[in-house]
């Protein structure tokens, strides 16, 4: 045990590691908040779709040798998010099909571009790193750290301010729109937030594992709690605890950050699933 503590203390001397932990907790908070709404709106897969769009956008940004690829990736992802979520209601191509289309298209396009304009000699490693997460969260530049922190803070603030409205729009969109709530505006806002959160979360777990960050906390909380407030608060807690644990474990055990975090989230889900069964019986 002391050996583990020593090892952690050693790593936490480095500011980069401390920043990584703070940024991860913030991102975990955002994605859990967003996840509750997405799960309830039946948009669980949007994280997957958007992350592949972000992957494609990142490939394009790399081909253009942009330094701060955030500036390109975020707007592109947000635009796709708005298109997907707004079209969701009455599009000719239904939600899941549209997501599948966009995500495979962007994935293929991104890979092609990466192959055609290779930045480094080992393209496969680059691709693997973007898809499954690299140690990128431990190597954020100062600008990226600030960007992540500010964007997460904004997302959390949006959820705090519009909490009741987001509940109403998610619960019953027709009633909200009929009684003077601007449901469309809030839906677009959620779409923008989804885009931003997906791009942020990519730093943490990579493109392929993002859904876990969005979906597991909400689903875990819904096993046990049956009102919106409790589910929201609980999934925030789950997410923060699991993300922290995941990062600490990956540092100590030297495992890949992204997959470790996701496995911890999955473990959390089973714990809550069990707790749900027990509370319902008892």
């Amino acid at each position, binding site marked *: 045990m002391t050996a583990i503590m020593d090892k952690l203390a050693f790593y936490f001397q480095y500011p980069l590691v401390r920043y990584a932990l703070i940024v991860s907790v913030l991102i975990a908070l955002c994605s859990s908040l967003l996840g509750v709404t997405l799960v309830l709106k039946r948009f669980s897969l949007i994280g997957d779709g958007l992350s592949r769009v972000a992957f494609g956008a990142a490939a394009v940004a790399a081909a253009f040798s942009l330094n701060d690829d955030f500036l390109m990736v975020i707007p592109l992802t947000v635009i796709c998010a708005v298109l997907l979520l707004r079209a969701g209601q009455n599009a000719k191509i239904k939600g899941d099909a549209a997501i599948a289309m966009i995500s495979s298209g962007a994935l293929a396009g991104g890979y092609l571009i990466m192959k055609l304009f290779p930045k480094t000699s080992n393209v496969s490693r680059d691709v693997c790193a973007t898809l499954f997460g690299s140690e990128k969260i431990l190597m954020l530049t100062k600008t990226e750290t600030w960007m992540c922190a500010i964007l997460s803070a904004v997302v959390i603030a949006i959820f705090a301010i519009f909490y009741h409205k987001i509940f109403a729009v998610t*619960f019953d969109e027709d009633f909200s729109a*009929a*009684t*003077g709530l601007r449901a469309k505006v809030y839906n677009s806002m959620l779409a923008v937030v989804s885009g931003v959160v997906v791009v942020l979360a990519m730093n943490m777990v990579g493109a392929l594992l993002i859904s876990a960050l969005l979906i597991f906390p909400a689903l875990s909380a*819904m096993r046990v709690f049956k009102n919106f407030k409790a589910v929201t608060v609980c999934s925030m807690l789950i997410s923060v605890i699991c993300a922290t644990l995941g990062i600490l474990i990956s540092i100590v055990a030297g495992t890949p950050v992204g997959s470790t975090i996701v496995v911890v989230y999955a473990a959390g889900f089973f714990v809550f699933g069990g707790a749900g069964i027990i509370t319902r019986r008892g």
Partner: protein
Amino acid sequence: MPQLICRDLALGYEGKTVVSELSFTVNAGDYLCVVGENGTGKSTLMKTILKLKTPLSGEIQINDGLSANEIGYLPQQTVIQKDFPASVREVVRSGCLNRCGLRPFYNKAEKQMAEDNMEKLGIAPLAKSCYRELSGGQQQRALLARALCAARKILLLDEPAAGLDPNAAAEMYALIEKLNGGGITVIMISHDVAACVKYASHILHIGAGSALFFGTKADYLKSEAGCAYAETGEKT
């Protein structure tokens, strides 16, 4: 003073007309009952008034500074995800949202109103229960309480009595009559002809084969459509 004027409306889905040549006026304080057979377009009309749908043609004029956030609405069917975690209190309170404007949280008065409306509809003991685990009638009461919270000038109800037991239905009608007496306009779709004839000031009949009638209750009872429909209503 007309609050709502519909002129020569045609309603339908994807270009297929359901009902056309619909014209009527609703004054502030009126109690309008919309009656007619299944599938003649009553709910469609209500959604169009609420701007959830656009009419195929014709116009809807809303006067008297009536803005959307003074409307209460009870939908006929609410598609709610089976696993939605929401307590009755959260659902009822969401009816107060249109009073909040930019304020992010409910104030004391709004919370109290939600409690009062739950009390009036007899669901106060269920406040903490999970909405989706209630019976159909209990869910209907919760949605009614939500609609009452939202209604400041006008209340639109799509078959409010559906699923309510006779006592609850009678209480609900009395409650709505009281609100109407307090100056709130009521537009109600109902298959309960006896109640319509008892409470309404005006009746809009959307019959099969586009047989339309709009007028006061007295005129309706004298009209052909009214006689036929009211009689079948009495028999059942």
